[in-house]
């Protein structure tokens, strides 16, 4: 396609080449060629104007959307998130209780945020409704309801210098405590996968 051909000046020099050598001193051809001299001067001006435009845009509140744009998006995102996956955690004569996975992840992430050297990534939580709830789970349901076993799979990024086994053990402990305190369930399994490093 002709449009995609390398665009050239009247003297045959490619504009791309000229642009990439703006910082280098003009060569012999460029010094004597009117096409190149002219184009070079214009391109230097363009480069300055581009930098000024970029800088001005980035620092001017006029180039920012209204706050209501962010609020609308987040209202919808939060509402959708809360309903994205509901886990039936408790059967009861008087009715069932389900908790959104997102609400449970909030508790998990809250616990993980308190452990230095760890960044929580994907978190998947499941309850097993197929199995009979185990009486040894340590759950205590004062109203006689039955609680389903909960399994937490958390993927994390770790800072390079931490001692992984110790940190993961602390993390697992903190998650267990937080879920017990804020939900009222002792998760039976907390699987933690360290999948990446990050710079602290």
């Amino acid at each position, binding site marked *: 396609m002709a449009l995609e051909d390398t665009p050239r000046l009247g003297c045959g020099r490619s504009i791309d080449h000229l642009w990439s050598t703006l910082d280098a001193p003009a060569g012999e051809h460029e010094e004597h060629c009117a096409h190149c001299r002219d184009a070079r001067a214009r391109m230097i001006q363009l480069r300055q104007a581009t930098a000024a435009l970029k800088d001005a845009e980035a620092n001017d509140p006029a180039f920012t959307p209204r706050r209501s744009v962010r609020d609308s998006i987040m209202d*919808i995102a939060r509402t959708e998130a809360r309903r994205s996956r509901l886990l039936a*955690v408790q059967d009861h004569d008087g*009715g069932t*209780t*389900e908790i959104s996975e997102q609400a449970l992840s909030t508790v998990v992430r809250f616990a993980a945020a308190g452990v230095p050297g760890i960044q929580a990534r994907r978190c998947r939580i499941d309850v097993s409704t197929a199995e009979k709830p185990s009486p040894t789970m340590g759950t205590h349901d*004062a*109203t006689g309801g039955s609680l389903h076993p909960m399994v937490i799979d958390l993927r994390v990024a770790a800072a390079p210098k931490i001692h992984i086994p110790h940190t993961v053990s602390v993390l697992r402990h903190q998650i267990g405590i937080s879920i017990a305190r*804020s939900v009222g369930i002792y998760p039976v399994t907390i699987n933690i996968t360290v999948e990446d490093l990050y710079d602290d």
Partner: protein
Amino acid sequence: MTEEVTPAAAITSQFIASLAARAALETPGVLRLESTLNDVLSRLRLAAMEPTPDPANELGGCRRDSVWAEINGGIAHVHLEIATDIAHRALAVSDAVRERVRQGICNTGVGAGSIDISILAIENQPTQG
């Protein structure tokens, strides 16, 4: 309890929904009733986005925000969607809400059926001021 025992047509599903909403909001550890996506969209008046149909309307029950109630054969069934305070045990809060709602329903003379509770968010209570 049957409909005959209940004062005729005196109790509507709407009344039960209001009663359940109030009982839930008065329970310590409940931060709020959750908004449905339809509520959010209509609040934002996003004409371009089509709200999903509300199944409660098709079932003939009553939905107020995220409380759904239905009276069937003199028995009231309720479904609540709530957010709880991270400082409270969510399941204990859920049990307390269920008990309050059940008590409230019984006081109307209607029988209390299933009271299902969905905990959609567990959050820090926003600090005042």
